[in-house]
């Protein structure tokens, strides 16, 4: 019998209801992953220019902080559960489409390294931003600079070291990273595998709808000469009705059964 290459032989061991649940689980997971990845893909395709700004705003780190912008810290800062970000970070190859995980801004490097020490001291940054009449400049210099740059107000050129990375045409950088490519490939392969499997499951179950391959024999020592052998194979109530026969007997003897008479007598 052609079987699915699952660790267990589902058709043989698992009843129909559980089978359906087991089959639905990967479907739900696949749909969820597909929806999530599609949402992020669409988001970055249409709103990619704002990605860095968004990431920085979302992280909440200021330029002066020297802490590493690890996913875990970002999650904690945003009120997330401790450990979640770290867990996601280790799952990065699979979820590399998440923006904070994979975007260059969110890579675990010191935020302060974006502003080279000495060449452009924080005080100068604050003064420059005050000149630009940006009230938030004093609290988060890096955020303001990035926002400024994104708003296109580049009439006052920034030093090259302060300019955020410029996106070029083409796929986002995180998409081209090795982990990202591997994640997308793995997701695509998993989705294809599930689709093929589900199609085959459907085809098999359509072809051989309900029969459990090992019919269970139930012996009902029934009424008088009739009893049933039943195969539990819902929805088929498959039974064998056995009819015994006491038979007809005949006696042949050469000189009578008790030696007193000849012949044969037949009885029904």
């Amino acid at each position, binding site marked *: 019998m052609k079987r699915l290459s699952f660790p267990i032989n589902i058709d043989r061991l698992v009843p129909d209801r559980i089978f359906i649940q087991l089959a639905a689980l990967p479907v739900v997971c696949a749909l969820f992953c597909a929806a999530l990845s599609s949402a992020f893909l669409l988001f970055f395709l249409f709103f990619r220019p704002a990605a860095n700004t968004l990431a920085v705003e979302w992280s909440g780190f200021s330029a002066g902080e020297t802490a590493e912008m690890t996913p875990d810290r970002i999650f904690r800062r945003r009120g997330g559960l401790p450990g979640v970000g770290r867990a996601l970070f280790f799952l990065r190859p699979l979820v590399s489409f998440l923006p904070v995980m994979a975007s260059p801004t969110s890579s675990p490097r010191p935020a302060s390294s974006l502003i080279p020490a000495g060449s452009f001291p924080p005080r100068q940054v604050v003064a420059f931003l005050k000149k630009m009449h940006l009230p938030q400049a004093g609290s988060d210099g890096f955020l303001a600079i990035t926002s400024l740059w994104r708003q296109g107000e580049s009439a006052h050129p920034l030093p090259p070291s302060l300019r955020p990375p410029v996106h070029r045409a083409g796929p986002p950088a995180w998409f081209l990273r090795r982990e990202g490519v591997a994640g997308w490939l793995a997701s695509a392969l998993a989705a294809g595998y599930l689709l093929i499997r589900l199609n085959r499951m459907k085809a098999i179950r359509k072809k051989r709808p309900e*029969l459990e391959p*090992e019919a269970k024999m139930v012996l009902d020592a029934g009424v008088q000469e009739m009893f049933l052998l039943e195969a539990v194979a819902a*929805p088929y109530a*498959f039974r064998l009705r056995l009819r015994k026969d006491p038979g007809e007997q*005949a*006696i042949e003897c*050469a000189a*009578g*059964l008790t030696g007193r*008479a000849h012949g044969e007598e037949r009885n029904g």
Partner: protein
Amino acid sequence: MDEMTLEHFFFSRDDLNTCGKRDELEKTGSMTRIREAVAGVARGMHWEEVADMLCRSVKPLLDLPVREILCSGWTKQAEIEEYIRKSARQGGETFLVPLARHTLRSEHKPAVEILLNQRSLGEIVFHVSLAFTIDGAVLVIGQGHLREAKVRNCIGSGRICCDQVVMVEKAMDKIRFPDRFVFTC
């Protein structure tokens, strides 16, 4: 010792193969009709499993005590009936009736009907024929009944057929009956 039945007569205790000629059996008309009926009604049902069940049903069909066959054969003989009537009339008197060498033949037609969702798909009728050649038997008749029998020697043979196909055949061989049969018939 368990009571001897036709199942014990045809099959040894460790003989699990009750359908030695299954391939030939499946070529018979009855099996072909049932196979087509099953395929037509229950799509996807594996015929192998149905055939297995049919073959396994042969043993239960043969759950018929040899004692009852012997009792039925003897008690309907005119001479034995005469002793039975006499014992009934004479109350507590018991007759010991020695039997001459004779052959008791028995023909049975057990059948298996296949039902799918309470609908009959067909029936397979087996033909069981037996022959017991008994030498040196004594019947104990009392109170209007055949009460016991002691059989010294018995040679038996038999076969089970289905649509002219011999499924099981037991050659003529000596049968080890119990020391005595106690009848309730």
